[in-house]
């Protein structure tokens, strides 16, 4: 069963999941999203909540609906970049907040990041 985080509306958590699927390429431009019923079943949530998810995606300009056919991921150049930047900004933002809590300055943070990157980079690059 999918675990939702307490204290954050469920529809926003599903929206985040779907955005994640777009970023990772599991959902590509022009792909049809699963139906309300399918998503409700997958996450075991209220179909009304899924309806809200679709409205939110639509509002954020990520999807479009065709009556009687379904909801599709928009196939616009640069959309993926926007999403990626958005997510990156969020990750960096929370990183900075957490590091500040630990009392790191910008300089300390950067040097730590550099040395960590070197270690990680050896493994991944």
């Amino acid at each position, binding site marked *: 069963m999918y675990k939702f985080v307490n*204290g*954050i509306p469920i529809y926003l958590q599903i929206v985040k999941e779907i955005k994640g699927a777009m970023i990772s390429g599991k959902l590509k431009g022009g792909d049809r999203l699963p139906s309300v019923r399918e998503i409700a079943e997958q*996450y*075991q949530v209220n*179909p009304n909540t899924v309806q809200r998810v679709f409205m939110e995606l639509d509002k954020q300009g990520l999807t479009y609906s065709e009556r009687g056919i379904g909801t599709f991921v928009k196939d616009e150049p640069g959309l993926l970049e926007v999403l990626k930047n958005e997510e990156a900004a969020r990750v960096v933002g929370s990183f900075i907040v957490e590091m500040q809590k630990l009392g790191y300055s910008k300089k300390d943070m950067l040097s730590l990041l550099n040395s960590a990157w070197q270690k990680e980079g050896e493994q991944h690059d």
Partner: protein
Amino acid sequence: MIDIQGLSKSYQRKPALKNAVMKLEQGKIVGLLGPNGSGKTTLLRILVSELRADSGSVSIDGAKLSPALKAHISGLTTSDFMPEGMTIQEAANTYESFFKDFEMERFHQLLKEVSLSPDLKISSLSKGMKSQFALALTISRKAKLIVLDEPLDGVDPVAREDILRLIAAGFSPDSTLLVTSHLINELERLLDEVYFIQEGEIRYIGDVEAIRAEKQMSLDELYREVYRR
């Protein structure tokens, strides 16, 4: 629109439900949450005519509770409720013959979701399977009001997940679903609106997503806060 006004009920002078007031809108899944023995089941059993209220009224789209109104109410208060010796299919046929809003196709689809064969004898089912069968039967009716009493009670975690999936898949926006549970965490994700109940007193709490957004708490935490001594 289901309108419950000032419903009270006591057993041998012991009050079980005190002046309950609820307004349930079409297309919503509403939770009635509270511990065992708080009066949830009493309310649901009144709605399906298993019990009679001492006072107060229930109406669905303006029509008061009556034998004829039962055609619009689908209930599940126990998973053991069909005559002995029937198979799943026979039980479904009996349901279809009495309830015009029963959709056999949907029922079979739901059975498939939990991999139950229609030819099984009801008496041969395990407790979890019986709950799933009874639930499928109940939500395959396109009734105005569907009530489910503790659908997750006494079932193992795997079957619980199946049951949540069945409810999510089987719910039709033409219905109102009222579901009780003392397992608040498990049910939370399914609910639009929620009422709490304790010692027979019902309290309206509100829209579940709004509560998550505004109070940044789960329902379980909120329940503890509301009833903190």
